């Protein structure tokens, strides 16, 4: 079975690399756009109690929406292809990143902030040198969750013509061609597991020395 999948892969290298490229490009762009929107927005929102609660609650509702439903709802409005898939995947990534940024920023030790102000730090220095470094592990946990969700969601992007490795899986299921289906499923599973591992490692490295458990 796996040998057949390997043979199929070797005989279709161009399609495979193109699908892999689309998958990675789609996922990375969605994560980047979502992070560029949510991290600054989360930092701004975190200073206001009521607004934080409202945004976290709204994001929690957003998190319960199935990825495929989001992709499907985008299709009648924006059509099919790479751009609508990118839009839907970005939407899917917003809730985990924004909630983790808010929770991370609000969880910064108040004594540390007081001490920094007492030392005469400006607001900008306070943010860059105290608050952000201390919130970083939590923000990275959010990015990790979002990244894995995006990669899984990008498999489903095949249904709305977004391309990616999902194409091999859907074509494989449609024709009941197991080798073809595995050529999509195995790389995408490895991609998700690898991303999870990578972000886990980054999260540990981003944790300031003083906050590390051991």
């Amino acid at each position, binding site marked *: 079975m796996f040998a057949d999948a390997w043979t199929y892969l070797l005989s279709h290298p161009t399609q495979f690399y193109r699908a892999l490229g689309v998958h990675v490009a789609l996922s990375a762009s969605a994560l980047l756009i979502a992070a560029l929107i949510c991290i600054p927005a989360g930092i701004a929102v975190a200073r206001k109690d009521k607004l934080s609660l409202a945004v976290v609650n709204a994001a929690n509702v957003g998190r319960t*929406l199935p990825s495929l*439903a989001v992709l499907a*709802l985008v299709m*009648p409005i924006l059509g099919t292809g790479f751009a609508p898939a990118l839009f839907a995947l970005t939407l899917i990534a917003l809730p985990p990143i924004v909630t983790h940024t808010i929770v991370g920023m609000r969880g910064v030790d108040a004594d540390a902030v007081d001490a920094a102000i007492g030392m005469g730090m400006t607001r900008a220095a306070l943010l860059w040198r105290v608050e952000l470094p201390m919130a970083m592990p939590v923000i990275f946990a959010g990015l990790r969750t979002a990244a894995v969700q995006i990669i899984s969601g990008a498999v489903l992007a095949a*249904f709305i013509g977004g391309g990616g490795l999902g194409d091999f899986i*859907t074509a494989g299921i449609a024709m009941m061609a197991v080798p073809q289906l595995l050529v999509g499923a195995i790389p995408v599973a490895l991609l998700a597991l690898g991303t999870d591992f990578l972000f886990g490692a980054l999260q540990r490295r981003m944790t300031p020395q003083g906050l590390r458990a051991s």
Partner: protein
Amino acid sequence: MNWLLRNWPDVLVSLWEHIAISLTALAIAFAISLVIGIVAARREKLYGTVMTISGLLYTIPTLAFLAFLIPLVGLGRANAIITMVAFSLMILIRSVATGIREVPADIIDAARGMGMNPAQIMRRIELPLALPLIVAGLRVSAVTVISVTVVAAYVNAGGLGTLIFNGIASDHPAKIWTGALSVCLLSVSVDMGLALLERRLKNRRAA
């Protein structure tokens, strides 16, 4: 809207199918997780291993998991239910084990002092006290399972995803809207209902 008015009985059948598949998967996953969670709660090494394995299962994309099972169990409902069980194990086992671990040691000491045996302590002290956390885990996994069921329609498991896929295949926006919005409504209401239950259980414990 007109399409929905003409076809609402079919939509209700799909909704019912969706709920039935999700509930079956959740019940199986909960039974497995309860046993593993109880056994692993006080065994540090075993708990680590169980979390690593169930974490791997949780990370694999849904459609890839469904695809892996096709050579083994083929298309259909069995495939969908195995996938959903694999996906909910991590959340459920973690909530059972964490709930049991957080029971204060002096309460267990007191129970032992009253002459309870380990089985009685588990049934009458540890599990009831762990209940709010277990419900919290059920809430997250219920939402996850509902979401996986949508994709599972692609391997002929039925449910609301069928409407979405038919709508995409026949370029019929009304079907897509109906399927996608009903499934969103279902997840949000299950999430809110279980959140309410969770809060009640916590308050009862505090009172």
